[in-house]
């Protein structure tokens, strides 16, 4: 993620490495004693013991604490030292030479460290009453901005500092003043909105601030007071003062404060998830003592702030999470109702614009872009695709897309920031959210002694008046994407991908189906052309032969011979007629264009006529035996029924290997039953459903004449009559095809007048 802010200055490497936790000195407003935990013998002491305690440090080191404090204080200290955790015991009231002190205890490097600060009468004032009122105020806070404002106001009122700020760390560790409270009458220069480079608070300071949450400097002009001996006898290193209240601070920091005309300061850490989120920074123009209870109250408030920050953010997060969950649920519902993916995600509210806070969003699916809100134009979107393809992982976020994709310069007002989600890498399916360019000015404060600011793309730096503030105009960037935005985008992945996977599977299946259908059709075409060309060939030969016969002048043409030849020729026409008829039927039946024309007919009569026709034409082939003892009357389409019977019979004849074919017609209850039985080659079990498909043969290698459509046509017609057709077969023995047709007769047949015998129509 690109940052709009300057690099850290190389110059401050000194500051980075300065060991601020072992300064070897303290601020002189208190006294530091380091004791052996068991004997309470003083092993290290600050040199200002004479000022505050009346004894020189040399006189104190090596002595038991009992020699300094009264018995009651000693007892309190011992009790405190036994507390777990130790900090609960602080502060411990201690009396030395009739003066009262607050003692703050902590452990360091094997020693018990006691820091004594003079108590004042002010301390007796219970800050607790105020604190209760503050907590009440905080309880009503519902928005983050209100929390920050309340925090600085209350701490300012409690502490009396001239200026109290909340200083927040950005991702790249530079800071920004996001809230400020001024003591009334203090003047009107505001630090609010100023940014400070990360180097202003170097790494080891940040580390310390995470360990020790409060530090105060009552007077920056203090003279540091050494702690002796310089090295801890136990560790041979200087005493680690990370947790010391009186720790002397880095001179660089003091100079920094002086540059800001700050004479006293206090800062309290706001820690979240063990990381330094920000600081409450307090400044005062003149030296200021901060009594212990006030410090404690402020520290408590800062803690409260941390917790409230957490819970407020979680609350907002939960609310947002719920909204997003609702939107996602709706997407899924739309998808299940058959909406296309892009439709489901973009068309009506709530849509993708409710998942991530933006003004425009585009979805690429199936090679097409669809958008909602304000987005770059179509060609620009497609031009973006090659860059999107380079995405590592599923999500890509940038607040300055033009830095990665030059063409984006042209549409920055719509989308300087891009958050992209890839939910189908091969298909190049993406969701892309756009944030418009956010041209804004960043005001920089900070140490004037600092570095040269490097020019970056999009930044124009100009000094502003006389104060240590520089203005930087940032363009080409959008408002940055938060981790919440990215999480929300990612959350969409399962829905989109689910759809993607389903779609891919669908397409794969369609491809397979298509390939199969094409193969079938191609095979059919080659079979059909053979079937049609053969009778045409015969016709051609026959007519040519007749012509040659007539041309031969040496013999007279016998009329009988001529008649036979003509009959053979005519038979081919009939064959062609049937084949072409089948082809037309197939195309009409397949498109559902046929409509039944039912009339009241007798199936037995119909079958008799079909059998007669087929038997006369068969010549020496197998014959058909008809078994239809009784009339079978019902409401059926006679033309179509004739087709069914004829197709079944010619099928049986083809495969019958010479044996007689049987046709049985009877009535079974409310239905008519037609059975065609042959003793032919039979149908293998795996082919039994297949043979009723178009273009199918039970054994395609057989090269049996015909288009392979007959049984399919039978099935279509039978199903149109709401009937059924089945086959039973044993390979090598024969097959029985059974057609069942519901009768659809109104009233019992015996009461009806003799219905007219309707034969099949001949066109």
């Amino acid at each position, binding site marked *: 993620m690109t940052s709009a802010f300057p690099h850290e200055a190389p110059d401050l490497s000194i500051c980075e490495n300065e060991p601020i936790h072992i300064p070897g000195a303290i601020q002189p407003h208190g006294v530091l004693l380091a004791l052996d935990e068991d004997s309470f013998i003083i092993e290290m002491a600050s040199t200002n013991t004479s000022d505050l305690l009346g004894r020189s440090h040399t006189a104190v080191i090596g002595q038991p604490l009992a020699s300094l404090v009264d018995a009651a204080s000693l007892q309190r200290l011992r009790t405190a030292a036994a507390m777990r955790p130790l900090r609960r015991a602080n502060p411990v009231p201690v009396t030395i030479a009739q003066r009262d002190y607050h003692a703050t205890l902590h452990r360091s490097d094997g020693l018990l460290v006691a820091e004594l600060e003079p108590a004042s009468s002010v301390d007796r004032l219970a800050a607790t009453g105020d604190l209760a009122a503050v907590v009440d105020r905080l309880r009503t806070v519902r928005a983050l901005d209100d929390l920050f404002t309340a925090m600085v106001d209350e701490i300012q009122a409690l502490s009396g500092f001239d200026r109290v700020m909340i200083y927040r760390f950005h991702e790249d560790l530079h800071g920004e003043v996001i809230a400020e409270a001024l003591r009334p009458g203090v003047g009107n220069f505001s630090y609010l909105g100023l940014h400070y480079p990360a180097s202003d608070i170097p790494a080891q300071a940040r580390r310390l601030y995470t360990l020790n949450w409060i530090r105060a400097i009552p007077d920056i002009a203090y003279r540091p007071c050494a702690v002796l001996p310089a090295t801890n006898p136990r560790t041979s290193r200087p005493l680690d003062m990370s947790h010391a209240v009186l720790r002397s601070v880095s001179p660089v920091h003091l100079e920094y404060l002086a540059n800001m005309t700050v004479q006293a300061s206090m800062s309290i850490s706001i820690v979240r998830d063990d990381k330094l989120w920000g600081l409450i920074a307090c400044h005062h123009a003149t030296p200021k003592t901060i009594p212990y209870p006030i410090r404690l109250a402020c520290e408590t408030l800062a803690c409260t702030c941390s917790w409230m920050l957490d819970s407020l953010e979680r609350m907002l997060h939960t609310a947002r999470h719920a909204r997003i969950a609702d939107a996602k649920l709706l997407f899924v519902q739309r998808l299940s109702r058959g909406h296309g993916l892009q439709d489901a995600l973009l068309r009506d509210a709530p849509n993708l614009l409710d998942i991530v806070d933006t003004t425009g969003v585009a979805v690429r699916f199936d090679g097409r872009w669809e958008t909602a809100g304000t987005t770059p134009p179509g060609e620009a979107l497609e031009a973006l695709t090659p860059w999107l393809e380079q995405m590592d992982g599923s999500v890509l976020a940038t607040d300055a897309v033009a830095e990665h994709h030059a063409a984006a310069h042209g549409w920055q007002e719509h989308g300087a920031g891009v958050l992209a989600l890839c939910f189908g890498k091969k298909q190049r399916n993406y969701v892309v959210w756009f944030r418009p360019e956010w041209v804004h000015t960043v005001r920089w404060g900070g140490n004037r002694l600092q570095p040269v600011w490097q020019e970056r793309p999009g930044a124009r730096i100009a000094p502003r008046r006389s104060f240590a503030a520089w203005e930087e105009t940032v363009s080409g960037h959008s408002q940055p994407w938060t981790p919440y935005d990215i999480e929300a985008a990612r959350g969409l992945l399962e829905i989109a991908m689910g759809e993607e996977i389903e779609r891919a599977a669908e397409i794969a299946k369609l491809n397979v189906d298509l390939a199969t259908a094409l193969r079938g059709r191609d095979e059919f075409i080659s079979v059909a052309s053979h079937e049609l*060309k053969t*009778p045409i*060939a*015969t016709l051609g030969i026959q007519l040519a032969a007749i012509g040659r*016969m007539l041309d031969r002048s040496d013999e007279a043409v016998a009329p009988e011979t001529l008649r036979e030849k003509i009959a053979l020729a005519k038979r081919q026409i009939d064959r062609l007629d049937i084949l072409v008829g089948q082809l037309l039927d197939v195309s009409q039946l397949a498109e559902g264009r046929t409509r039944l024309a039912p009339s009241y007919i007798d199936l037995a009569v119909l079958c008799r006529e079909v059998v007669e026709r087929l038997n006369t034409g068969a010549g020496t082939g197998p014959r058909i035996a008809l078994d239809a003892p009784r009339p079978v009357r019902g409401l059926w389409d006679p033309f179509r029924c004739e087709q069914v019977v004829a197709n079944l019979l010619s099928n049986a004849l083809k495969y019958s290997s010479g044996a007689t074919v049987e046709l049985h017609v009877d009535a079974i209850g409310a239905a008519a039953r037609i059975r065609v039985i042959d003793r032919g080659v039979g149908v293998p079990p795996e082919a039994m459903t297949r043979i009723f498909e178009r273009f199918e043969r039970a054994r395609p290698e*057989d090269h049996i004449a015909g288009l392979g459509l007959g049984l399919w046509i039978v099935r279509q017609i039978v199903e149109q009559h709401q009937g059924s057709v089945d086959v039973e077969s044993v390979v090598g023995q024969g097959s029985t095809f059974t057609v069942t047709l519901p009768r659809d007769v109104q009233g019992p047949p015996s009461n009806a007048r003799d219905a007219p015998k309707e034969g099949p129509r001949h066109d």
Partner: protein
Amino acid sequence: MIDYDVLIVDDDDDLRQALFEALADESFCVAAAHDGAEALSWLRAGNVPSIVLLDNTMPGVDGLAFRRAQLADARLANIPVVLMTAARPQSVPAELRCEPMLQKPVQLDHLINLVRTYMERRGAS
């Protein structure tokens, strides 16, 4: 060994009959088989035609199978075979191709000339 002029191999009864009679009317000595198996056994029985008119698609031993068997048999390999096919020449598999190939529907005049040519060739050799 009985000499014939033409052997017709085709499963379609009507086409076989038409070809048989048309060629017989031209005074050729004609025989006919309804599939490759029948044709092979007829040839192996010692009958030798000047030319075989072979249909491609037949049940049982089809044109391709007949051709393979014929070419594998030294006694039969040299018998001239003309393929009659409804398909386009390019789609006929290479091992099946013979010169010439006839596309259905075949012209009777052309067929008669073809038979005469092969009879003369045989007469010459």
